[in-house]
């Protein structure tokens, strides 16, 4: 489900700006670290859960204002390399501020035991993560499909020029959606922190997986991100259990097959 939060953010940004943000993993890591700091100071996981995504969104907002707004017309290579530079900066600033040690956040007491689901005992925090994923998916769906702002966003994705003619402020929409996408990465970071811990290098682990999900699902499609993350997540986990030697390769094989059959991804436009 974290995969979904990450790829939803990335796919939103891609859909609007046609930019692949390689620094998305860095934002995920920074979200986790900010959550860690808030958790250490206030000892409240819930506060961290709410504030970390907000701060990450703020960072995204600043990044957009300073950098991304200037490279919208550049060729894809420059856009990608700019975000590549951001990875370096993200990794080193995390090392500077928080050190190279790996940390862990413990889940709040209510969620630290296991519940019995369908006869199997299951850690309740993981259920909570799944719940958050579904909640965000539902909220995003309602926001994008049922509200007026959502309609404007979709209009800006489909045809930015026409949207501008209809006096939709596409720039403003871009800024806020970019921040939203970054915030989702931060949310993913903090929700996953109690399970996987917080350490430098966690950005690289998820980045490629997220990119694959976005490519498989169809860039710019939220539904694609959901289905794609479920597909890749299951293939990855089952692969690791049953055929560990080639588990890693299977994910890429899934992607290759998808691209050969449907070059625009499962739900590509």
């Amino acid at each position, binding site marked *: 489900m974290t995969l979904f939060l990450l790829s939803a953010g990335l796919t939103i940004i891609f859909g609007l700006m*046609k*930019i*692949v943000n390689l620094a998305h993993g860095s934002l995920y890591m920074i979200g986790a670290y900010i959550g860690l700091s808030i958790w250490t100071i206030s000892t409240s996981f819930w506060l961290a859960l709410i504030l970390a995504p907000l701060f990450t969104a703020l960072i995204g907002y600043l990044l957009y204002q300073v*950098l991304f707004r*200037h*490279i919208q017309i*550049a*060729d*894809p*290579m*420059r*856009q*990608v*390399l*700019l975000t*590549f*530079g*951001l*990875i*370096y*900066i993200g*990794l*080193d*600033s995390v*090392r*500077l501020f928080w050190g190279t040690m790996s940390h862990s956040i413990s889940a709040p007491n209510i969620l630290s035991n296991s519940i019995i689901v369908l006869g199997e005992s299951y850690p309740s925090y993981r259920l909570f993560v799944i719940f958050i994923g579904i909640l965000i998916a539902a909220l995003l769906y309602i926001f994008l499909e049922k509200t007026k702002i959502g309609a404007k966003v979709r209009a800006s994705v489909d045809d930015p020029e026409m949207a501008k003619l209809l006096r939709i402020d596409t720039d403003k929409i871009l800024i806020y959606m970019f921040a939203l996408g970054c915030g989702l990465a931060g949310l993913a970071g903090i929700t996953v922190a109690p399970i996987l811990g917080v350490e430098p290098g966690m950005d690289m682990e998820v980045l*490629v997986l997220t*990119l*694959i999900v976005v*490519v498989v699902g169809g*860039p710019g499609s939220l539904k694609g991100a959901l289905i794609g993350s479920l597909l890749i997540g299951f293939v990855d986990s089952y692969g690791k259990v049953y055929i560990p*030697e*080639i588990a*890693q*390769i299977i994910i*890429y*094989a899934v*992607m*290759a097959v998808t*691209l*050969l059959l449907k*070059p625009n991804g499962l739900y590509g436009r």
Partner: protein
Amino acid sequence: MDYMEDKMKAVNYNPRLRLHLFIVLVVSALISIFFGGYFTRFFIAEIAILSIFAMSLDFLAARGGLVSLGHAMFLGIGAYSTTIFILNLGISPFIATILSLLIGCFIGLLISYFIVVLNGIFFIMVTLALGEMFHAWVFTSELLGGSDGISGIIRPDISFMGIDMNDPFIFAIYSLLWMSLIYFILSRITDSPLGRNLDALRQNHMRLSAIGGYAKVYKIIAFTISSGVASIAGSLYVQLNGFISPELTHWTVSGEGLIMIIVGGIGSISGAILGASVVYILQHELSNFISWWMLIVGLLFILVVLFMQDGLWGLIEKLRLRLLKGKNKI
């Protein structure tokens, strides 16, 4: 999508400046080889090899209009096939390099047949994924040493000529020779009708198709040549270090290669060599002084991408123009 959006920009076509810059670079490399110590010679050899890699990316980006974030895969193919040829099959290192070039070309041909139809950001993502797939494979493969890598790779033995390849001085010269050879081959191709067609393809592939060029075939040719060149770089790299680790195939290696060609100026071949040298020296010098050198390098990357359209090549071209103008006035 509109083809205009995917258009790659390359520097002005200027073979004379390209040759001059190349001569300056090679001469300064030779000077540092002659007067430098053990480590300088090792560094020069490494820079020469990285330059070969950068040139392969440069050729692909400028001539094919394709940006690959998975090119480290070919570095890895060259490196691993050389390793297997030398250690498991007992083939001499020089022939192993040639064979790995052929393997790289063949795999490049195979892959490009499927992926050159994609453009822009999709091509970047697919090459990234392919490269990571290869990385994941070598990382877990027992045969290829897994995450530990393989060591004990030897260099070509030419002791019958009275030369010892294990001397860093000799190997630096050997690497420079390869670099120069590849520089001249790529320059030849760029200046040939094929190269002109490739440039036309990058600038406007629809128009090229309209006047009877086979866009897809040209792209495949560019990708194949480029992957072969990258394989040579990989093959030399393992001979230099004597060991191989899967880190060589990580996608960030390709990313750094692309930064090198942006620093040097895309499409200028010798600019790629300059860019590789600058980026490599910068990384090494900074990491000696400051522990957070990556932060600075990242910032510099961003500044270069934002503000230096034609990289250092552009600067040199401007300076040269100004100098020539000054001469004419007198």
